[in-house]
């Protein structure tokens, strides 16, 4: 099952020590692993 809805994820970078929450870009969503309905 693919995720087609906008996703909000948390991003932390240790160099800048900043945390942001934002929607994934289309490019990022295309790289996500396939979601599963249930564990195997």
């Amino acid at each position, binding site marked *: 099952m693919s*995720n087609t*809805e906008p*996703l909000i994820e*948390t991003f932390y970078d*240790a160099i800048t020590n900043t945390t942001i929450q934002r929607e994934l870009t289309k490019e990022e969503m295309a*790289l996500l*692993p*396939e979601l*599963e309905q249930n*564990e195997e």
Partner: protein
Amino acid sequence: MAVKTFTTGEVLTSADTNTYLANAGLVYITGGIQTGTTALNVDSVFTSTYLNYRLVMTDCKTSITDRALRINFRTGGTTNTSSVHDYAYRGLRSTGVTGDTSSAAVSFAEIGIYIGTFADLELGAASIDIMSPQTSTRTFGVANAVGYESGAYQMRNGGFVYNGNQSFDGFRISLSNTGNIAFQWQLYGYRKA
């Protein structure tokens, strides 16, 4: 190797403290509290300072039940989802029911936490050793995890591998399906010398 035997009456200097007493063994790198979103992405944490790392997660909960926690690795702000991840865990619930899980050549690895019952409670934890993520070699992981599933706590022990030669500087923790994830986390580096 940074070891010194101090003699009785020897003065402990700041230099000695900084060299021999600080940063011993597991060295704290960073950490935080994840809440309110579908995944945590962490960048710029795997460097050449350490070869191996430990990620400790606790107070883990999901907004929707029946979710396995996954890990992927990142390079330059991009998550790697190549179908070269293998993982396998032996699982046993406190009721005596087994709960093994495994997959080969998939786009993610699991870390052993599965929340099957009671969303929005603190029902999972894991300690994950991550070996050689920053070098352009295989990345291995060994995990011990606890999660609540089917009316009992389930303990899982096992590991994973990114079966390719790749250098990573970060990781991503996400769920096997939709929903938000929350946990506290700390990342340590194993001091080399």
